């Protein structure tokens, strides 16, 4: 089979979430790759059964068959669309009926990784400690939900609610991914591993996530041993509800009178501690995102999920020793904006590398940089502390220097943004 004649990129309206279909069109056939399907917030104008509508649109767009499905990481806004529902009548059931030949997930989702000492080739002891910690982290989340229920007025707890919601495992979606992987083939990837995709004429590179060992190899200075770090954080997260640190004989019946005002003031502390734990977990899970790069002729497509700066640092550290990686990043023509346009998922170093920035204004040949942004304003972060998503400064740069395709600009009647690229 020769190389594709065109590639169609579709971004479906899932509000705050991601859902992309890449269709590689060959002379006589097409192969379709679905990247993520999830949402944690829909526009007010969206239909109640929006995810079902999107699932049906995917089915129609791929002609009833997926070559591959990629779940970049386990956050709800990337995978809850795969949930088949209690009675197998949810959006995930439709996706399962498309019988993907291959299911790609990060190494962190490999059910064998924590148990099997040999595990995937590059996954070592540090990575396993990390996985154990993620599981323990998740155990801290019910405490977070309890706090959230107590008081939803506080901005701190609202933030906690949002992060908690996205991080609490969606077990049915996770199980469904395992099931689909078993029916076809499951591939758990890390930087440098094979993707398992079978797309003639397309070169696919896995640029992330790094294993913990890979990450550590670029960290010159470490304050603590990583295994200790994770067990420390996880251990303290698990006991966040907390046992006092001294024997009962040192406990007082009540705090001394003059201390009352400060004790009342400090009532924010437990929530803040918990928020911190959930925030770490949130960032950590984002950094488990699969980063894929597809090269077809002159077109280079970069899909980094929600990978943040910390994960990107590994790829970027490789660019000086490995000019071919650098060149691939420089040549990117289609960029899926990382993490819904948050402040730390499009590293400026990466951004500056992309040489087709601004090309659409200069009329430099036929190539220009296209960006795809799937997001919903007002859901996450705050303009008060420059954490709003999408970050307005990044959005301004995207509008100025790329041809921006954003789900935010979709009218209520339309279900997707799409664009056809010729190699």
């Amino acid at each position: 089979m020769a190389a594709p004649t065109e590639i169609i990129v579709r971004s479906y309206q899932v509000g705050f979430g991601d859902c992309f279909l890449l269709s590689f069109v060959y002379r006589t056939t097409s192969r379709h790759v679905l990247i993520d399907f999830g949402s944690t917030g829909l526009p007010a104008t969206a239909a109640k059964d929006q995810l079902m509508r999107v699932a049906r649109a995917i089915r129609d767009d791929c002609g009833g068959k997926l070559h591959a499905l990629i779940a970049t990481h386990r956050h709800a806004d990337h995978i809850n669309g795969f949930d088949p529902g209690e009675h197998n009548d949810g959006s995930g059931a439709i996706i399962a009926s498309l019988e993907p030949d291959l299911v790609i997930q990060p190494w962190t989702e490999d059910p064998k990784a924590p148990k099997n000492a040999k595990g995937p080739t590059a996954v070592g002891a540090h990575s396993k400690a990390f996985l154990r910690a993620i599981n323990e982290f998740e155990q801290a989340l019910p405490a977070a939900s309890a706090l959230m229920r107590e008081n939803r007025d506080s901005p701190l707890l609202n933030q906690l609610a949002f992060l908690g919601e996205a991080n609490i495992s969606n077990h049915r979606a996770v199980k469904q991914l395992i099931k689909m992987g078993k029916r076809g083939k499951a591939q758990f990837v890390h930087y440098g591993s094979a993707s398992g995709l079978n797309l003639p004429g397309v070169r696919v590179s896995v640029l992330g996530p790094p294993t913990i060992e890979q990450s550590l190899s670029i960290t010159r200075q470490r304050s603590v041993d990583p295994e200790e770090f994770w067990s420390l954080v996880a251990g303290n997260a698990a006991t966040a509800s907390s046992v006092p640190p001294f024997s009962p004989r040192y406990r007082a019946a009540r705090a001394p009178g003059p201390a009352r005002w400060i004790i009342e003031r400090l009532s924010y502390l437990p929530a803040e501690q918990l928020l911190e734990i959930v925030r770490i977990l949130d960032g950590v899970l984002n950094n488990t995102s699969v980063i894929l790069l597809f090269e077809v002729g002159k077109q280079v497509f970069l899909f980094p999920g929600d990978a943040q700066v910390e994960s990107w640092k590994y790829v970027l550290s490789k660019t000086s020793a490995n000019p071919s990686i650098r060149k691939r990043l420089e040549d990117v023509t289609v960029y899926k904006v990382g993490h819904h346009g948050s402040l730390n998922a499009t590293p400026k170093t990466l951004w500056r590398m992309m040489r087709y920035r601004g090309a659409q204004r200069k009329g430099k040949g036929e190539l220009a940089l296209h960006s795809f942004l799937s997001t919903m304003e007002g859901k996450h972060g705050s303009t008060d502390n420059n954490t709003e998503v999408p970050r307005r400064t990044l959005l301004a740069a995207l509008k100025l220097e790329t041809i921006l395709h954003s789900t935010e600009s979709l009218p209520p009647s339309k279900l997707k943004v799409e664009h056809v690229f010729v190699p």
Partner: protein
Amino acid sequence: MTKETDVRTLRIIAQDPSVKHLSGENAGRILTAHVQIPAEDLRPGPWGYRVQVIDFDASSQTAFKSYRSLSATAGDRYRNSSDSLILKDPRFHCQNVYALVMHTLARFERALGRRLRWGFGSHHLIVLPHAFRGANAYYSPRDHALLFGYFTGATGEQIYTCLSHDVIVHETTHALLHGLRERFNYPSSPDQAAFHEGFADVVALLSVFSLPAVAAAILNHASPISNQDAENDTGLIQERAVSVKALRSSGLLGLASELGGELAAVRGNALRRSVELRPSPTYYTDSPEFRQPHRRGEIFVAAVMNTFLEIWAGRIETLREVRSGFVSREHVIEEGAEIAEILLTAIIRAIDYTPQTHIQFGDFLSAVLTSDREARPRDEKYQLREHLHRTFVSYGIHPASKSENGEWEPAPSELSYRNVHLDSMRSAPDEVFRFIWQNAGALNVNGEAYSRVLSVRPTRRISQDGFALEETVAEHHQTIILKARELKRLGIEKPTGMPSNFEVRLRGGATLIFDEFGRLKYHIHNDVGDATRQSRRLQDLWNLGMFNSQARDFSRMHRSRFSMFGQDGRGEEW
């Protein structure tokens, strides 16, 4: 009957519970020390005139039994307590934090020659030694408090940050520096963000080293006394065991390795890094990694700690050899502790001579060279200024002043003192402002900016010749708020990518040092309208994504020392 004195002596943990006696009859026991602090009648807490310790744990919502009241003349209840008692009795923890916070406050007051205020409005700094479960400790200005966490270590033992000398002094220093230079908490150059951390680290480390017990521990690492030697201890040490190299590579590094690995989560690893970061100008000038505040602060720490080592090793060379190739261990320890003390005093005193905002490391170097010469003109014994100057330059940090010796230039001589009154000039911001107003031209005051005299502080120190050195230190602050598109009018470059309607706040101003006759001695300024410096600063802040961030959040700053990847994303963020 106990004699009433001005000072009281309390027992503290010398560094943290992981640092133990290496030899002698106490081998294996926690290294403790006794510090002298101002004597006062203590209410339960302890609660004194500047510090209130409250032992409440917000994570478990538990109050612990209070440290009982103690009269100014009463002795130390924990003077001879066992290791196990001082670890498990929270009331000793309360004493430990109280003593070290007061000791640090007293040290700052002595160095600066006046009473100091905290950075928030109240007289009392609240200290919560077991505030929450978590590997963190921080200064929280909004709560008027230092909060210390506790956590479970990898082997299941409880780790209390309130038992760590350097962590306590580090946090207290943040609170004191906030009171001395409130504008250092605001977004500025990477140096200013780094300075708060680096300065707090340096004060903490030198405070620990100024205890003879710790100087002895460093020496024991550099040249161990084996048990055999201890029995027939001659009290001598080989001179080559106390070279700069030996003190650095086995002494300090040995101590750094001993410090509980898990506490590194809270304190970073200032000691280890200060030893490992060998002199080179490239970190400061060229390395993007060292533009991140944490890493940048390490350059400052390394410069000061290497100065300490060089002076110490230099002094050892001058000690009379007792036997060929041997010097007295006791003298070496005394010298080490004394040098730490003198260097620490010089470092603290320099704060009065720093600009009141936008500090850069070169400003600090000029400040310390000038203030030390003012208070301690004769420097033959330690050659502290020469060592500081040379070591800072070896790390790429040059004095901000262009004068030959790196000290600040004297203030302009043609100034008008008409109608300003000496008495008022020592205390009244309005009087100092009148002086500034009538000398606006000579003092480069920007006519367009909002102006305010933030503080006027009379100081009195005893100089080397035994006479009082009296000075008044005033801070004059200027602010201009404008839109990015207006920057061009002031000759300032708009950062690349900044929207033209973006609100920009420019800060500047001066520190004014008046002599005992009310004459201006030094005018240490960085002008609000300095186009070159402001252009660079705006671009830096924009690149770092810190532009509109509020005053420093110490809690988060300290937590990010503990990030998994050991680096934060500043510079890469939008």
